[in-house]
């Protein structure tokens, strides 16, 4: 029997790569939690997330964010991916992303909660998001990639499974 909260897989990049993939995700948990510690080579990169290789416009997301001086909220609809981006851009500083993916093996559309955290000693920001993937299939794979440049050495992604009683 799986544990209540356990790692399914971890990828730590030993050299730059354009994407990280988790495949063959078992359907034995209740929720998934994805934790990504990211170094981008491009200061303008947005970090993008797709499920099951779905490239169609089935993703939407609503954000709330703060950059140290102002708060904002924005939204995408009918997008081909989820995205989390740093509030300010500095590729030498890591940022932390998380996605909680609820009922990922169920037969409803999939809702996720996302976070992005980066601080650069004078700039930076915090983002919280909610996203919807309009697809009722169980999630069996997750792709993480950058809109520009690559992920640098040391970028780490871990996928956890969370099981209910």
């Amino acid at each position, binding site marked *: 029997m799986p544990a209540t909260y356990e790692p399914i897989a971890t990828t730590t990049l030993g050299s730059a790569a354009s994407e990280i993939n988790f495949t063959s995700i078992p359907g034995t948990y*209740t929720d998934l939690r994805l934790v990504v510690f990211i170094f981008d080579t491009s200061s303008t990169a947005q970090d993008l997330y797709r499920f099951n290789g779905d490239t169609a416009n089935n993703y939407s*997301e609503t*954000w*709330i964010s703060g950059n140290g001086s102002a708060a*904002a909220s924005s939204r995408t609809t009918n997008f081909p991916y989820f995205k989390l981006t740093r509030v300010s851009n500095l590729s030498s500083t890591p940022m932390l992303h998380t996605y909680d993916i*609820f009922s990922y093996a169920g037969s409803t559309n999939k*809702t996720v909660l996302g976070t992005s955290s980066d601080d650069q000693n004078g700039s930076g920001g915090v983002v919280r998001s*909610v996203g919807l993937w309009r697809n009722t299939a169980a999630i069996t794979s997750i792709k993480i990639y950058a809109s520009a440049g690559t992920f640098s050495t040391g970028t780490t992604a871990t996928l956890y499974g969370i099981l209910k009683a």
Partner: protein
Amino acid sequence: MLQNFTLGTFSQGASGGGGAFESIASATGTGSSATITFSSIPSTYQSLHIRGAFFATSAGSVDITLNGVTGTSYARHILSGNGSTVAASGAASLAGITDLFQSGMSSTNACVALIDIHDYTSTTRNKTVRVINANDYNNTDGRIALLSGLFMNTNAVSSITFTSTSGNFTTNTQVALYGIKGA
């Protein structure tokens, strides 16, 4: 009040791995009840954590009450974004930690929440509750909120009730209660 929960056991073996984060119980909606209650919560943890995906038969919200207490024992503050504006609000002397989803419930897309209740076993202090609650329906609705709730009661928390303010929780609703151990 209908208590449609599935109790796990509280031993390490129940979760298969034990550790600091253990599953206590979970519940699913029945389609015929507007409440889900976790009762007889053990006092053997440092904090409680709840993960919920809520679906309902009509567009209501979800209220949280602890130990069956209503009255005016709760307060909350909310910071939220709806895709275009950011808002902050507060309310006091409430009958529960109310209005998690601002009438955003749906039968097809989940309203989700992550909830933490710290120091829930204290018998001398009021209880603070942290909630992240949100929903996104593509181009029709979307909202994410960071909520701080207060339960002005010094009793240990032994039950938690989620109430749909309009319609019943559908069978896709899934709520799980976890205990987090201290060292």
